[in-house]
């Protein structure tokens, strides 16, 4: 049983690490603000769920698990809000998405 829990948490942690890394590379290499935001949100949601889920399996039923659930809920509630607020602020300030810009200029990408 504990081996099963260990294997499961190892799988979750590794997948979480890979998601975080993919999101980070995406935030660096994507061409536009909005696409970068889209990549960074992968780390905040998928990465957080997998990593914290993996740690929760290791913790068992204890106070630490309740705190981890609180952290996870807080992250899931606030990081989409931050992304939304940031995107709407950027849109109101006039930053245009890259697809619209290319359409306006009618040049080959």
């Amino acid at each position, binding site marked *: 049983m504990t081996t099963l829990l260990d294997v499961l948490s190892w799988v979750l942690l590794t997948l979480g690490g890979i998601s975080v890394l993919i999101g980070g590379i995406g935030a660096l290499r994507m061409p536009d603000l909005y696409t970068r935001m889209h990549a960074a949100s992968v780390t905040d949601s998928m990465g957080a769920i997998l990593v914290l889920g993996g740690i929760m399996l290791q913790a068992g039923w204890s106070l630490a698990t309740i705190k981890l659930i609180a952290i996870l809920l807080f992250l899931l*509630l606030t990081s989409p*809000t931050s992304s*939304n607020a940031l995107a709407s602020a950027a849109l109101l300030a006039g930053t245009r998405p890259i697809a619209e810009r290319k359409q306006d200029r009618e040049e080959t990408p």
Partner: protein
Amino acid sequence: MIVMFGIFLLTLLVITAIAIVRTSNLFVGVMLMGIASLLIAANFFILDAADVALTEAAVGAGISTVLFLSALALTSAQERSKSSNRLLSFTVVAVAALVLIYATFDKPRFGDPLAPVQTHVAPWYLENTPTYIDIPNVVTAVLGSFRGYDTLGEVFVVFTAGIGVLFLLGSGTASSSLPRETNNEGLRHYLIPRVVGRFLIPFILLFGLYVQFHGEYGPGGGFQAGAIVTAAIILYALIEGERRALAALPQRWLLGLMAAGPLIYGAVGIAGIVMGGNFLDYSPLASDPVGGQHLGILLIEIGVGITVTGVLLSIFHAFAARGR
């Protein structure tokens, strides 16, 4: 392995510091300072200093960034070109840095178990805390009871900083008329942050109270709790607007909180004298000395918490009211 992580974080800190110095856009500097503060806090955490890490994150990455941005909103965003003598200042800084580096040659090596602090100071505190004070968090025991005088000084320093800022900027009651009142409503037009923020503020306040009273058993205490409660009320001010935040927690109350903190601290000290001990001696405050220590630490942490809350909120309102 943990040391490698610490070194990696410090390298990132050096890169951030170089980037802060080389940029001329002040807004970028403020953002990078927030990141540098988070890096230092993570480093403190890796070195197993949890209370310091919590305080650094709450005050440095959170409140300082907000205050810098409030100040930056009143001025321009580009740095002025330097007109002073750069060679002289470079020489002074280089000489000071070299002297400091030379002084570190005399220090014991990092983590040396034979260093004087590990053989004399730390074991004394670790052995005597269970007998005298009997709380699990030795940091709070040292801060609250063994070195309570220093913490009294810290509370007065925070109080002085608060009244200094209020002298310079005014007390934040927006006496000038608000020209565009409908637009000063904060982030009211952003519906999602408003809903989520209003949902979260009670939980953040509850978490602040938890950190305040849990400081004897885990990382926490008055300074951190004051910063977290301030963060909750700043969130309310950001979402609902400055006027409503001042209506919720008026300026008189903030001044009262600022003054009540050192008052409580000094009163606990004098109560020690009145009950028959020395100044800031908590043992005579209750029926047995250990219970007296618990009561004393509880009361002074409350004093510290409300001072920090009052000061940080007064400074925030002083900045925010000037821009209207």
